[in-house]
C-alpha cells in the first residue's frame, strides 16, 4: 500500500445520502477477477447522465469525494472501494459511513473522513470552485479560505495509512504468536488442526 499522508486537490461535491454499494458499483461488475479497471463501472448508472460530476472537466480524476450520511451501505463487496480507488479517489468525506465500507476502504488505502453535516455543507460550497486539503497527521481538513475542520480516526488505521502498512504484512510479522497458538490448540483441540486431511 502507498503511504497516505496528505490529500490535496479538487473534491467532488457529490453530497448524496445513503449511497449504497450497488450505486457505487453495480452487481454485474462482481464477475471480474482483478481489482483493476473498475472505474468503468463506478457510479455507472449516475454516469449515464452526460452532465454527471464524475466525468466533468473540473472533477474528472479528483482525489476527494464529498458525500452525505451512511455512505457505502448495502453489500460487503470490496469492489466498491476498488472502484473508487480506480477513479483516483484517495479520500471520502461524509457525516457517516457503513462499517463494512469504511473497513474495506481502509484496507485499500482510502481515507474515510467523518465530519459533521455543517462542515460538509461548507466543503460542498468550497469544492465548487476551489481545492480541499486533508492532512492525516494533524487530522485536519482545510480550505484556501482559512476553514479548518478536525476529524477523529482510529489510531491503528492512522498508523497503517501513514506508513503504507498492509494489515497482512503486519499480521505475518506475528508469525511466532500464530505458530504458538497452532501448537497449543493442536494439542487441546487436535481435530480442529486437521481440516481437509481426513482424521
Amino acid at each position, binding site marked *: 500500500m502507498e503511504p497516505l499522508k496528505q490529500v490535496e486537490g479538487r473534491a467532488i461535491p457529490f453530497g448524496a445520502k445513503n449511497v449504497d454499494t450497488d450505486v457505487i458499483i453495480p452487481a454485474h461488475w462482481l*464477475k471480474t477477477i*482483478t481489482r483493476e479497471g473498475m472505474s468503468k463501472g463506478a457510479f455507472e448508472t449516475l454516469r449515464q447522465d452526460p452532465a454527471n460530476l464524475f466525468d466533468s472537466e473540473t472533477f474528472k480524476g479528483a482525489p476527494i469525494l464529498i458525500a452525505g450520511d451512511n455512505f457505502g451501505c448495502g453489500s460487503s463487496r470490496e469492489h466498491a472501494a476498488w472502484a473508487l480507488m480506480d477513479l483516483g479517489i484517495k479520500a471520502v468525506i461524509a457525516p457517516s459511513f457503513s462499517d463494512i465500507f469504511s473497513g474495506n476502504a481502509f484496507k485499500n488505502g482510502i481515507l474515510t473522513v467523518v465530519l459533521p453535516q455543517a462542515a460538509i455543507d461548507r466543503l460542498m460550497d468550497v469544492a465548487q470552485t476551489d481545492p480541499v486539503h486533508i492532512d492525516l497527521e494533524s487530522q485536519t481538513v482545510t480550505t484556501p479560505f482559512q476553514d479548518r475542520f478536525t476529524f477523529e480516526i482510529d489510531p491503528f488505521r492512522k498508523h497503517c495509512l501513514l506508513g503504507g502498512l498492509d494489515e497482512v504484512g503486519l499480521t505475518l510479522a*506475528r508469525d511466532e504468536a500464530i505458530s504458538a497458538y497452532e501448537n497449543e490448540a493442536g494439542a487441546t*483441540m487436535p481435530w480442529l488442526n486437521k481440516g481437509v486431511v481426513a482424521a
Partner: protein
Amino acid sequence: MTTGKPRTLYEKIWDAHVVERREDGTCLIYIDRHLVHEVTSPQAFEALRLSGRKVRRPDLTLAVPDHNLPTTARRDSAGHRIPIADPESAQQLAALERNAPEFGVRLIGDADAEQGIVHVVGPEQGFSLPGATIVCGDSHTACHGGLGALAFGIGTSEVEHVLATQTLLLSRSKTMEVRVEGQLGPGVSAKDLVLHICGVLRASGGTGYVIEYTGEAIRDLSVEGRLTVSNMAIEHGARAGLIAPDDKTFAYVKGRPYAPKGDEWEAAVAWWKNLATDPGATYDKVVVIQAADIAPTVTWGTSPEDTVPITGTVPSPDDFADPSKQEAAAKSLAYMGLTPGTPMQDVEVQNVFIGSCTNSRIEDLRAAARVLKGRTKAPTVRWAIVVPGSGLVKRQAEAEGLDRIFIEAGLEWREPGCSACLGMNPDKVPAGERCASTSNRNFVGRQGPGSRTHLVSPAMAAAAAVTGRLTDVRDLADVRELG
C-alpha cells in the same frame, strides 16, 4: 474452559481462538476453517501472487465453485465439459481452478459429486464443525452457526488475510439471545420461524451482535432446520448466528469425511458438550418469541424484514409508525406491484425456486416433495426449478425418488449451485414476474432485474407451484404428512 465467570457460547468459542489480545481490545483470532468460492477469491489469490505470499494452511481451506455455475448439465455424454456461455462466469471458474492447485488448496470441481453451495458442502463434508471459527467471502456463512460454530462472512481483503495468516483482527461483538419458547405448529417450518424473527428484529436489529438462538422450538429443530435459521442471521444484521450443539448435532457430524474419528471424536464431543452457555451467563440483549404465534410466513416487500403470515394481507405504508419506513414501504409496494389490503393468498406467482444455501438440503427437498406428491404445477406457473444444495443431496434425493415426484409434478430437476437466489448464473426471474422462492433475500433485482421475490419455506414454495399463487400449505396438504 470451565473456570471463571459464566460465559455464553459465543464467549467460549471466542476465548478458545484468541491468538493475541491487543491494547485497544481487538484480538487476533485464529480461523479453523476457510471456505473459498469463485466470486470473492480471485483478487485475494492475485494479491498473494503479487506479494509472493503463500497460503498458510491450505489444509484448513476448501475451495468450491457455486455462484456462477449453470444448473444444467456440466458434462456431455462423453464426459467433456460443456462450456459456460457467459465468458465472465467462465473466467471466474477458470481462475478458481487455476488458483486452488497453485496454492495447494483442495478444490471440489464443478462436476464432482461433492460439489455444491459452500454452505451446504461445509457441514455435509464434516469440514464445518461445532466450536470452530469458520469464514467465507460470503455473508451467508452465518449458516454454519447452526452446528454451534462461530461463522461469518468476510470481504476480499479479509479473504486474503486469512489465506496468508489463518487469522483475522476482530473486535468482540455484543451478544443477543433470541429465545423461541414453546413448539411450532403443524406445517410451520424452520424457514417460517426465521422469517418471523426477521420481521420482529427488523433488518438491522442484530447489527453489532452475534445472536444465539435458544429455546424449545430451536432445540426441537433438526440440524438442517438449525442451519436454515442461522443462515439468515445476517438478514437481521447480525454478524453471526449460533445454536448450541447437542446430541442431534453430534449425530449429524459423526462419520462425515472430515469429521474427527476414534479417540479424537470422543475428545471433540466432550469439548463440544461444554460449549453451551453457562447458567448465569448474561447476554447484552434478550428477545423472546412465542413459537405458537408463528404461522407459515411470506414476505411482501423488498427487505427480509417485510414479513407477514400467509393468512394476512399486504400492509399499507400507513401501518408503519416510522416515516422513513413508510417511504420505504411505499417504494417496495410499487416495485412489487402490490396493493395494500390484498390477501397474501391472492398474490399470483409465475415462478417457483426451491434451492439456495437457506433451503436446499435433503430435508427441504423432502418437505417440498411431500406437498408435490400426486399433485401438478399450475399451468400459470411458467418456470419452477428445484436446485439441490450439493451433488450428494441430489444423489440422496434421487435414491429416495424425490426427483421423480418433482418431474412428474412439472418442476425441473437441476444441478447444484446458488442459482436463482442471486442470478449470477443463467437462472433468473424475468422483470415484472413474481417468484415464490426458498432463498434468503428479496432485494430489488436480486433474482434478476425487475424480479419480484416472495420468500417462503420449501413446503410453501411447493404449494405455490401447485396453485399458482401464494398458498397456506396447511390448507392444501394434510399437515400430518408435512412432518
